[in-house]
C-alpha cells in the first residue's frame, strides 16, 4: 500500500564537539507522505534536517534522493534539487523586502527583475493569504508573518520534498489550518513532507507516519493511526509521562488571599494597548488569554516597562512607584521572560553560564561581579533543574537546540528569584515532557509565594496553571474568568466573542 520512496537516509551520524547529535539514524520519506519527525529537545531533529540540506557536513551515512546518492553543500543546492526547507529559526534578512526574501539566492540571472519578482511574490502571498506587501521591508512584519513568508519561500510548486522544522510555533489556529490545507494540497500532488513540531495534536491531525528520535538515535518508524499518543510520548521520553492530571492547582480560599504585590491602574504603553487595570496577589498565577496579536504580550511588556510606558499608576507592594525601564522593574522584583527569545532573550555568542547569570548580574550591578565559582554553581543547579541539554556550561548558547535555548532563558529568571515573574510563552518549542515539568515548577513557585503571570497559546496549558484568566481582544481587556467559569469552552467563547 505504501507508495514509492523519494528520500532515503541511511546510517547518518553527526557529532559536534562534546555532543553526539546523531548516531546511525535511518529515515525514509515516501511520495505524498506527511512524515512527522518527533523527539525531545536536543534529540537531533533539526540536525538531521541540516545534514540533509547541506548546512552541516555529515560524519557518516548517505542520502539517496530518487534512487541516486546525493550530497548537498548548501541549502541552495538542495533547493535546486527540489528540497524546500523552512528552518526552525526564521532565517530571513530583516533589511530586505518581503519579495526579495522569497526569491534571493534562487535566481540564476545576474540582474534583479524587480517588477517581475514583486508580481510573482504578490501572487504567492495572496494565494497563501499572507497579509504582507511584496515591497515591504521584512523587519516591519510580525513574527507570524515572517514565519509565513519563510514558508512561502520554501514552497516551490515543483518541489519534491518540503521540510518544515517547527513552522507552527508562532502561528495561531487559523494560520495553522491554512498551512495544513496547503500541506494537504502538496501531498495530493505527491510531494513528500517532513514535519517537525512539539504539538502532539497537530501531528495526529496531519501526519501519516511518525519517526521518533531520542538522544540522537532512531527509536523507530510508526504509522500515526496505529500509535497511541501515550505510547508516542513514552517513546520520545524513554519513560512514561508523569501524569498531567496529577497537577493540582492550589485554589486559594478567599480568606487566605494575601496582599496584592502589583497593582496597575490605567496602564498604557507606546506599543498601543488600551489603558488597563491589573492586579496580582502574592502566590497567585494568572494569565492573559487571547489570540496572537490581541495585545497579551504588549500588556505584560507594559507591566515590565519593556515598551515605553505612556500612562497609568503602578503600585508595588502597596507603594506607588514609577517603573520607567526594565531595570527599574527588575530592581522592584519583577522578572520577565520575553516571547521572542531571539531578539530579546539570548546573547548568542555568550556561554550557557553567562546567559544564565545575566539577569542576576545586571541586578547586582556590574561592579560587584559574581564570583566564578558562584556563577558556576548557579548554572549547574539550573541546568539540572530544567534538564538543559548542553555539553558544558561554557558552550555558546547558539549551539544548543531551539528548545534548550528557551530553557536557558527561563533559568535566568528563576535564578533572580523575583517576587513577581512574567512568563510569555515559556513553553514554546519545548517538548511535552519538559512542558509538564515547567507547569509543575510554576505551581511550585506559586506555592512558595511567588506571583506569576503565564501566557501561552495553548489554552489547556493556561487552564492547568492559572487560577484567573484575563481575556484580551483587539488590544483591550474584554473580560476575566476565574473559579467555576474557568473552562476551555468559556475561555474560547470569550476570546471569540469578546466579552459577554
Amino acid at each position, binding site marked *: 500500500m505504501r507508495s514509492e520512496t523519494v528520500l532515503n537516509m541511511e546510517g547518518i551520524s553527526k557529532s559536534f564537539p562534546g555532543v553526539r547529535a546523531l548516531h546511525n539514524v535511518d529515515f525514509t520519506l515516501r511520495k505524498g507522505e506527511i512524515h512527522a519527525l518527533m523527539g525531545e529537545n536536543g534529540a537531533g531533529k533539526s540536525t538531521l534536517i541540516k545534514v540533509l540540506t547541506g548546512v552541516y557536513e555529515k560524519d557518516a551515512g548517505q542520502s539517496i534522493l530518487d534512487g541516486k546518492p546525493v550530497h548537498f553543500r548548501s541549502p541552495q543546492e538542495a533547493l535546486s534539487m527540489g528540497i524546500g526547507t523552512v528552518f526552525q529559526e526564521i532565517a530571513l*534578512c530583516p533589511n530586505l*523586502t518581503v519579495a526579495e526574501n522569497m526569491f534571493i*539566492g534562487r535566481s540564476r540571472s545576474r540582474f*534583479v527583475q524587480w517588477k517581475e519578482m514583486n508580481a510573482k511574490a504578490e501572487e504567492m502571498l495572496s494565494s497563501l493569504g499572507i497579509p504582507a*506587501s511584496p515591497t515591504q*521591508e521584512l523587519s516591519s512584519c510580525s513574527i507570524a508573518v515572517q514565519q509565513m513568508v519563510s514558508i512561502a519561500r520554501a514552497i516551490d510548486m515543483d518541489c519534491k520534498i518540503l521540510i518544515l522544522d517547527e513552522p507552527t510555533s508562532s502561528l495561531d489556529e487559523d494560520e495553522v489550518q491554512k498551512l495544513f490545507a496547503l500541506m494537504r494540497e502538496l501531498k495530493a500532488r505527491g510531494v513528500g513532507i517532513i514535519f517537525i513540531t512539539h504539538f502532539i495534536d497537530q501531528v495526529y491531525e496531519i501526519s501519516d507516519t511518525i519517526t521518533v528520535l531520542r538522544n540522537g538515535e532512531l527509536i523507530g518508524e510508526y504509522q500515526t493511526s496505529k500509535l497511541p499518543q501515550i505510547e508516542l510520548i513514552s517513546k520520545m521520553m524513554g519513560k512514561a509521562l508523569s501524569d498531567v492530571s496529577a497537577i493540582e492547582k492550589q485554589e486559594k480560599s478567599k480568606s487566605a488571599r494575601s496582599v496584592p504585590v502589583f497593582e496597575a491602574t490605567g496602564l498604557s504603553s507606546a506599543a498601543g494597548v488600551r489603558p488597563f487595570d491589573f492586579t496580582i496577589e502574592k502566590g497567585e498565577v494568572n494569565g492573559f488569554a487571547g489570540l496572537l496579536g490581541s495585545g497579551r504580550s504588549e500588556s505584560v511588556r507594559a507591566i515590565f516597562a519593556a515598551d515605553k510606558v505612556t500612562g497609568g499608576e503602578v503600585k508595588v507592594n502597596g507603594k506607588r512607584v514609577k517603573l520607567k525601564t526594565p531595570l527599574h522593574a527588575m530592581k522592584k522584583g519583577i522578572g520577565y521572560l520575553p516571547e521572542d527569545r531571539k531578539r530579546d532573550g539570548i546573547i548568542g555568542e555568550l556561554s550557557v553560564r553567562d546567559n544564565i547569570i545575566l539577569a542576576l548580574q545586571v541586578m547586582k550591578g556590574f561592579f560587584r561581579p559574581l564570583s566564578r565559582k558562584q556563577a558556576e554553581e548557579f548554572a549547574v543547579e539550573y541546568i539540572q533543574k530544567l534538564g538543559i541539554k548542553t555539553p558544558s556550561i561554557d558552550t555558546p548558547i547558539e549551539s544548543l537546540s531551539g528548545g534548550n535555548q528557551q530553557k536557558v532563558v527561563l533559568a535566568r529568571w528563576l535564578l533572580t528569584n523575583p517576587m513577581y515573574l512574567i512568563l510569555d510563552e515559556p513553553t514554546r518549542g519545548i517538548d511535552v515532557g519538559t512542558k509538564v515539568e515547567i507547569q509543575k515548577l510554576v505551581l511550585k513557585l506559586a506555592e512558595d509565594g511567588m506571583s506569576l503571570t503565564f501566557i501561552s497559546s495553548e489554552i489547556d496549558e493556561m487552564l492547568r496553571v492559572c487560577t484567573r484568566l484575563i481575556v484580551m481582544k483587539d488590544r483591550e481587556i474584554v473580560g476575566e474568568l476565574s473559579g467555576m467559569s474557568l473552562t476551555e469552552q468559556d475561555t474560547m467563547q470569550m476570546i471569540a466573542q469578546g466579552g459577554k
Partner: protein
Amino acid sequence: MRSLNTTRSKTRLSNSNLLFIIAGVIFVLMYGFALISYPGSFMQFQTFFDLFNLNAALFIITLGLCVVMIAGGIDISVGAVCGLVTMACALLLESPMGSILGALLLALAIGTAFGVMHGFLIAYLEIQPFIITLGGMFLAQGLLTTLHKDPINVTMPAFVALRNYTIEIPWLGTVNRLGYFIPSEIKPGVIVVVVLVILYAVLMKWSRFGRNVYAIGGNSQSARMLGINVKRTRFFSYVICGLTAGISGFVFLMTTGAGNIGNGALFEMKAIASNVIGGILLNGGVGNLLGAPIGTLTLLTINELIRAAGVQSNLQAIVSGLLLYIFIVLQSIVMALRGNERFRLTLPPWLKPQDKEVENQG
C-alpha cells in the same frame, strides 16, 4: 487570521531610504545655510563644482567603502592605497616608459591586489576586517615611503595636458563684476565620479551581487541559509573597494599632478564619516549608495563653511568630529524609534567583543 491582519501591511519607507532622505534633507539645509551666510562664494556655481573638482578622489573612495560598509565590513586601508597609487603612477609616468594607459593599469592593479588580499583574508580566513585592513594600511604606507620620499611632479606632457583639461559648461556660469560671463568648469575626474556613482548605484540596486551584499550585511547567518554564497560576496565587496581605491589614486594624481607621501592621508576616515553622514549604517545592511556622495558633499560643505568663516583650520576637524557624533546618535534614535527595538548604538560587528562566526544555530 486576525493576528496577521493586525499587522501593518501598508508599505512603509525602508530604513535605507529613510536615512537617505534624512541625509539629503540635511545636505540641502546645510547648503541653504551656506548660501544665506556666504552668498558671495556659495552663490557661484563654480564653488559647487569645485567641491567635486578638488575632491573627486574622496568621492570615489567613499563609493567603494560604501559597498564594503553595506556588506557589514570596513576597510581603513583605502586612503593609504590611494596615496601609494599616486606615487607609483607618478614614478611610472616620469620614467622613460611612462604612458597614461600604463599608469592607469598600474593604479587598477595595485588597488585590486590590495582588495583581493583583504577579501581573501577577511572572507575566507574569517579574520577581523578592522585588523586586516589596518595591516593593509601600514603596508601601503610603508611601500609609499619606500618608493620615494620626496614629492614628484609629473611633467610628462600628455599627462599635464590631461590634468589641465577642463570642460566648460557654456550655459551655467557667473557674470563677473566687469560684466563678463565666466562659464563653469569641471575636471575630467568629475566625469569619473559621475560614471562610478551611476555604475555602483545600478550595481547595488539591480544586480544579484548588490542584493547579496545587502543580505549579508543584514544577517550573514540568514543569508547563508537563504542560499547566498556569503564568502564570495564578502570577498568581492573588498575587491571592489580596493579597485575603487586604485581608481581614486589615479584621479588624485590627475587633480594635483604630483606624487607625495601625504597624498590620501586620512581619506579613510573622511570616507567613513561621509558614509555615516550619508545614512550608511556602520553595522551593515542599511544604506542607499547615493548616500555616499551626499554624505561627502555634506562633509565638504561644512569644511567650506568653516573656511569661509575664516577661523582656524583645526576647527574643521573638531567640527567634523562633533558632527559625526551627532549623526551616529541621530541614526540610532531614528532606528530605535521605528523598530520596536530598544535604543542602542548601532555598533558594527567588528567593534563588538568576540564576534566569531559560529557555524550555526540550533
